[in-house]
């Protein structure tokens, strides 16, 4: 039959032959924020193959750390997960303190817990809001951006910066809470809860949003663990793993909070988990403020925590320590340490090696979104091009953290 057709000059198979389309999505594409490139092979609109290229935001973070004094690394850590930058500060400081073997005062621990949770909220606001934005719901996005702005006002009042906080130091913090902070928190959280409710009403039961999110980008529990998932994406599959619970650090063991878990591991569960975590974080912040004792915020050891400016400009000994810290850096004992904190995206681990000098000999970060991004082909292969958008967003690749 085929031969006959060919003889007549018409080949049905040839005429109805389809080709796949290869297309570069990114690095400058509206959906590939955080700067990433997808090399897609499309059959119509179905994703046949996807190649994820990361590294567009690589700035040699780990190598750069080796050239900085121990405290000089903090501004660089801010730029890892820039939507929740103080969490990176806390992780790094805690690892360095583990290496030294000191424990920060109780008030400092409470403050760190509090500001970490605020950072987590900010990260989730950004992520969930951007997810809505990319599905076309700009209004919902702006609602969460407003909530985040208010939150950033609070953070700004504490540490003077809105995005890159640079608030934590080895052995303490840069400064204590400002006056009237508690009242501000009360005011801002009341407004945040209202915005949260509005957002929830607009999207959670919105049929279009449900259709876009449900049953897209799903992953099984087993696969999620095998691919090294952590954070909301792992919890969405039903695994209640949270560093704050599994290996409590700071004062998380004293906090009363729930760990939301999903059931199916799809995008909608990831969304729900993040939404609930925002509420839990708000409650943790309030608990911190309630339980927070008075007292110093820095360790009283000038070898690790730089003396205050007042002291070092009036007294001899603090001046010497100040000089030594600035010129040589703290001489952290030889050794290595790993400490993980629960970042906005999952387990954010720092592995530090010291050779006794004033600079880290090695600083390695375990970024949660690297593991998540590596599983992206698994999540979207065979689905429609449009499904890549919510899946990629809920994976929440943060270029600064993934590429370092």
């Amino acid at each position, binding site marked *: 039959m085929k031969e006959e057709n060919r003889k007549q000059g018409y080949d049905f198979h040839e005429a109805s032959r389809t080709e796949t389309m290869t297309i570069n999505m990114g690095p400058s594409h*509206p959906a590939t924020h955080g700067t990433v490139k997808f090399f897609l092979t499309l059959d119509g*609109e179905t994703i046949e193959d996807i190649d994820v290229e990361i590294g567009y935001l690589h700035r040699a973070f780990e190598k750069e750390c080796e050239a900085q004094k121990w405290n000089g690394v903090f501004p660089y850590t801010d730029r890892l997960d820039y939507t929740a930058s103080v969490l990176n500060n806390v992780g790094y400081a805690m690892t360095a303190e583990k290496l030294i073997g000191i424990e920060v005062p109780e008030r400092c621990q409470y403050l760190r817990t509090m500001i970490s949770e605020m950072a987590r909220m900010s990260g989730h606001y950004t992520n969930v809001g951007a997810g809505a934005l990319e*599905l*076309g719901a700009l*209004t919902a996005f702006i609602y969460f951006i407003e909530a985040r702005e208010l939150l950033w006002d609070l953070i700004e009042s504490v540490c003077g910066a809105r995005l890159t906080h640079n608030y934590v130091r080895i052995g303490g913090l840069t400064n204590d809470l400002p006056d009237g902070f508690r009242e501000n928190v009360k005011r801002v959280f009341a407004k945040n809860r209202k915005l949260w409710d509005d957002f929830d009403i607009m999207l959670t039961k*919105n049929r*279009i949003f449900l259709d876009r999110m449900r049953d897209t980008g799903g992953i099984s529990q087993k696969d999620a663990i095998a691919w090294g998932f952590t954070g909301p994406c792992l919890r969405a599959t039903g695994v209640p793993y949270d560093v704050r619970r599994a290996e409590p650090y700071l004062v998380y063991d004293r906090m009363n909070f729930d760990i939301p878990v999903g059931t199916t591991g799809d995008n909608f569960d990831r969304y729900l988990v993040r939404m609930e975590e925002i509420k839990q974080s708000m409650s943790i912040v309030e608990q911190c403020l309630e339980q927070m004792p008075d007292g110093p915020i820095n360790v009283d050891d000038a070898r690790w925590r730089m003396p205050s400016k007042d002291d070092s400009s009036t007294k001899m000994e603090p001046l010497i320590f100040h000089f030594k810290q600035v010129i040589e850096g703290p001489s952290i004992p030889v050794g290595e340490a790993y400490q993980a904190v629960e970042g906005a995206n999952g387990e954010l681990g720092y592995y530090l090696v010291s050779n006794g000098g004033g600079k880290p000999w090695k600083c390695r970060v375990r970024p949660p979104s690297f593991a998540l991004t590596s599983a992206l082909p698994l999540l979207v292969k065979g689905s*429609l091009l*449009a*499904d890549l958008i919510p899946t990629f967003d809920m994976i929440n690749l943060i270029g600064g953290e993934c590429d370092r």
Partner: protein
Amino acid sequence: MDTIIAFVKQPLVMEVLITLVKIGFIFGLTIGFFAPMLAWVERKQSAVMQDRVGANRAGVFGITVIGLLHSLADAIKLIFKEDFIPRGAERGLHTLAPALAVIPALVVFAVIPFGGQYTLWGHDVSLVIADLDVGILYVFAISSLATYGVVIAGWSSNNNWSLLGGLRASAQMFSYEVTMGLTIIGLIMYYQSLSLVDIVAKQENFWHWGIVWHFPAFVLFLACAVAENKRVPFDAPEAESELVAGYFTEYSGMKFVMFWTAEFIEMVSISGMCVALFFGGHHIPFLTQDFLLNALGDVFGPNWGGVIVMLIGIGVFITKLVILLVLQMTIRWTMPRFRYDQIMKLGWKMILPLSLCWIFLVGVGILTGVMPTP
């Protein structure tokens, strides 16, 4: 001078002049007024909905007129922008496509009545450019031509994203064409006419307004019309997070704005269709035109009274138009967008069967007399 007046007073010349005035009015209303105003409304209403300030910068000597001058500033900027045609694009078609998108959106207005019939100084004035017996069919025929502009734009740009957008648009617009036609069959059965002028005339009594008996058809029609216009939640062909900008990714300057304008004008014509079909056109509820003519005719004389009634009619029509436009804007700024296959599913598996059901129900209603026809 006298010869000119005599020439103008010939009935045929008068007819032509009146038609030209009407065309000029509609042209000014859509391109001149609604297109820039909707650009402003889109910015300002979204700002209000999102707790923002919105456009308020562009101004002359510090006078900003609540951001109204932004449309003017935009126009000036876009006229002077580089008109970019990508390498490898079909130059002719690439240039033609924006026009193909705008023209159907504009000419649909020819059959939408924006007022009633009036007798002024011995001339019959009917406020519709072309009173076609098959007005509704004309609307569908013309609006399906708009597909060409979009598809050609997508194909001729030599860009894969544009191509995907064009393909999505062709499938979507074609599907909703069919469905949109079916959603108002019930209405046609009810009014027993395909002429929009007839349909509007039959809605003089408020209880015969389309919306009273045909509310489900209105919802289905509006959904189809928004899908046809490719606005959120049906904006898969231009989904900015998926396809960059879809079929007009490779357009810049005024050509880009023509797609934009087409979208806005189509919004106006959707609203115009809805007003004519469901909201009684220029009619005021519980107030007949004759009553107004008599009341105002006593005060101002029959001719000037007629002019005032005509202006009131146009005002009522535009008010209804604006309300429906605000409704469309509100939908646009509330909803996320559908996935492409979900749009198709909604069209073929939900709206189509529902509109068939509605046709059946209307048929039964008319036959049994439950639904009294006007």
